[in-house]
């Protein structure tokens, strides 16, 4: 960033952006130059300040210091309306769409002109058809949002931004909810946008995507920009090192598995939710001692329900679960407490809404699920000192920071919360450990450690069920992979035969040719 001349070819420039929240220095003297018509990646761990920076650009926060230049002009952006006026558009991680409105209505919402809705709708339809044609962004304009798959919903968000005249498009973790195929499609769209002169700012923590699509990358760490590199001149390893500030091993070292007896199995397991929708349809699966079974799938295809039924939180509608010599069916009572007593550990997918209680202290969250064990309780009163010591011990072993058992759970970073939850479940020495999204929102340094501990569990002869939307993670850790679609198991692949393409097809309920033969061979048995 030695070049400080005003540059007409820059779509967006940040000069010395600074933002504090109380004691937290979220953005520290951030400089950034994004040339027109490029895809610029911003990468960094959770809490590195990416979101704060984007929110400043989009007018949700105001910077304490520094300037934002759009197209070479200093812009004051106190709110998102000004950002839109300056030609900045944003596609949020969680879509901001009205489910029961049509695509057209969603695009127009907030950008109506005139008192009569019909007039704006007619105008918008024409304009959208032009945009869709220009950028290959085909979306059925009269479909309501809830009829559309996630990939198309995202396209609606992009259209919304373009309709408002966005020249700079910010995408915040856009691929989190997409299948690999949908991701590819998104990338094609982004390329065509770029070729038409739109500038794209892509925020992500996925190194692979950065390398696949961006022209330049900026890396953030602890509120600072620690590097700007050309994508063509860098590597995963270099970026990871920049993000974390030290060398990181990205591959998980592991031996081949030696599966033993079946520890947990299901037979025709079916779960119907309160709306009457079958979220699990006759699922058969087995978890053996000494193996990691990965469950892949686009989120919302029954993985969460599978975990919760197995954990005793939801009751099956039909079929049964066998855990050792115990059975859980629709007729037997089941609860999280009972399943825990059967030596099944459960790290839930959503740690904030299930794994811990946000306004409990860390030590209270550290005994969630085991709060009734005699070691934490006298006859009447709880043994507060023993609980503190227990939490302290877990924190030492798993390097949870800050090491303060009295601190409110919500004040720990995602990675440290997750370590505390996994620590709690692993410490119970379960026979089967179910673990959902073990590294969602967790920084790279902690991911490395969590992965190592999961493999350690396997090597100690435990059965591990791993549910994750990160295919990289599934591929790196699993010995067998099952793929779920619409509440059913589409198929199973041995880890050494699996790759992203195969899993991606199965996630969209297509059986790849190379598996079909294996299937018929299986049926012949």
């Amino acid at each position, binding site marked *: 960033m030695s070049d400080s001349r005003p540059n007409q070819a820059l779509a967006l420039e940040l000069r010395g952006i600074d933002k*504090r*929240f*109380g*004691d937290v220095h979220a953005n520290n003297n951030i400089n950034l130059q994004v040339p027109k018509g490029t895809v610029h990646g911003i990468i960094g761990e959770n809490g590195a300040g990416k979101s704060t920076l984007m929110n400043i650009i989009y007018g949700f926060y105001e910077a304490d210091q520094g300037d934002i230049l759009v197209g070479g002009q200093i812009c004051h952006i106190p709110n998102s309306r000004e950002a839109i006026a300056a030609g900045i558009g944003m596609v949020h991680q969680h879509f901001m769409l009205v489910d029961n409105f049509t695509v057209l209505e969603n695009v127009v919402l907030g950008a109506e002109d005139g008192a009569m809705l019909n007039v704006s709708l007619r105008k918008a339809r024409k304009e959208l058809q032009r945009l869709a044609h220009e950028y290959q962004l085909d979306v059925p304009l009269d479909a309501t949002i809830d009829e559309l798959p996630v990939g198309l919903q995202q396209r609606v968000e992009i259209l919304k931004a373009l309709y408002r005249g966005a020249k700079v498009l910010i995408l915040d973790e856009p691929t989190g909810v997409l299948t690999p195929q949908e991701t590819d499609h998104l990338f094609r769209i982004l390329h065509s946008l770029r070729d038409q002169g739109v500038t794209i700012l892509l925020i992500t923590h996925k190194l692979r995507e950065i390398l696949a699509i961006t022209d330049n990358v900026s890396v953030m760490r602890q509120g600072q920009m620690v590097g700007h590199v050309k994508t063509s001149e860098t590597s995963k390893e270099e970026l990871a090192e920049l993000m974390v500030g030290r060398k990181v091993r990205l591959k998980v070292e592991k031996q081949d598995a030696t599966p033993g007896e079946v520890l947990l199995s299901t037979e025709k397991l079916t779960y119907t939710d309160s709306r009457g929708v079958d979220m699990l349809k006759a699922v058969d699966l087995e978890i053996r001692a000494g193996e990691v079974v990965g469950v892949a799938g686009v989120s919302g295809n029954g993985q969460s329900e599978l975990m919760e039924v197995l*954990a005793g*939180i939801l009751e099956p509608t039909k079929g049964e679960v066998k855990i050792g010599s115990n059975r859980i069916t629709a007729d037997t009572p089941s*609860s*999280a*407490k009972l399943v*825990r007593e059967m030596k099944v550990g*459960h790290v*839930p997918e959503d740690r904030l*809404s*299930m*794994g*811990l*209680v*946000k*306004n*409990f202290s860390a030590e*209270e969250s550290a*005994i*969630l*699920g085991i*709060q*009734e064990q005699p070691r*934490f*309780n006298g006859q*009447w*009163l*709880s043994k*507060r000192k023993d609980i503190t010591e227990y939490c302290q011990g877990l924190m030492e072993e798993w390097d949870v920071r800050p090491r303060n058992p009295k601190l409110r759970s*919500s004040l720990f970073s995602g990675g440290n919360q997750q370590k505390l939850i996994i620590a709690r479940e692993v410490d119970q020495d379960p026979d089967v450990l179910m673990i959902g999204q073990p590294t969602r929102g967790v920084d790279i340094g902690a991911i490395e450690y969590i992965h190592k501990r999961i493999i350690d569990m396997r090597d100690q002869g435990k059965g591990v069920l791993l549910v994750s939307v990160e295919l990289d993670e599934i591929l790196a850790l699993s010995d067998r992979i099952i793929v779920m679609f619409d509440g059913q198991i589409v198929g199973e692949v041995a880890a050494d035969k699996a790759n992203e393409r195969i899993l991606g097809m199965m996630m969209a309920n297509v059986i790849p040719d190379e598996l079909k033969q294996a299937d018929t061979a299986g049926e012949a048995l």
Partner: protein
Amino acid sequence: MNNNKLPAWINVLLLPLLNLALALAVSALVFIAVDVNPLDAAQLMIEGALGYQEGVGYTLYYATNFIFTGLAVAIAFSAGLFNIGGEGQAYIGGLGTGLVCLLLGPSMPFWIVFPVALLAGMAFGALWALIPAYLQAYRGSHVVITTIMFNFIAASLMVYLMVNVLKPEGEMSAVSAVFESNAHLPMMHDILGWFGIDFVRSPLNLSFFLALAALVLVWLLLWHTRWGYAIRALGSNPTAATYGGINPKRLTVIVMLISGALAGMLGMNEVMGYSQQIRLGFVSGYGFTGIAVALIGRGHPIGIFFASLLFGILFQGGNELSFEYANIEREMVEVVQSLVVLFSGALSLMLVKPVEKIYLALTASRANQANTQEA
């Protein structure tokens, strides 16, 4: 309960005091509007509530009621349940206490009547909370709606019982017979008399100590037992509680039973302590005021103690005020109480943002000074 960036002393002490000050400031305007000097009125209220022994006695006697009903609301709230039915539960609880006093009073000694009356009050109050609790837990009817409806049912039921069953023949008003003397709770002036301390006659009685014990027990239960852990987990995050092996339905019922029992203890003070007979409408709004007490006390027993004291002062001081001034009706005093509820309860978050801003500005400038000094 708070997710702001302020230190505890501001949240617990400064904010409630600011809210209270604001409420009193607006009350002052109301007094000015009816040509009463607000400073004189304030002085009279304080002196009436705390200035002499009988006043103190009345203040603590009212506070006793508020501690019971405040705790009832608070414990339900810590499990995420809004029990609006303290009024009805206290009413039916008082009926239980009164019935025991009427039935056992003539034949049994005090040391039997007292525990049985206490337990009966708690059981009747709990019973009155049971049906709404069950409906909430297993049938999904919202406890706010059902407990409100049960207040009305309790009121009608009591009218029927008082007029048709409990009223002795020849009695003109809707009251029961007066209990035998061995079914009277010892009054505070008697208790203190045993220790040689002179205290003027007031309605303050033994149940004040029951209320203090209830405060301590609820505090222990919530923060020092596994059951309290479960209750607070359920209140903060029901999903996590279920994950933690807690049965939310069963616990909902149990917590409502405890809540109803606490409200039911009000009868010890009002029925067995003060009036020594069952009177129509003896709860007279204490159950509803308990909601405000719990809100202002932030659901914590220490807070509830002080909030109860505050409302005791407002009640007693307010009574003195309406005696003294011809143009101040009982309703005027209720306006003051309502303003306190409004500012401390409903608008309690109003001042959080500005105070947070000021606090952050102050700490930031201090941090800057420290930085420049270091440099």
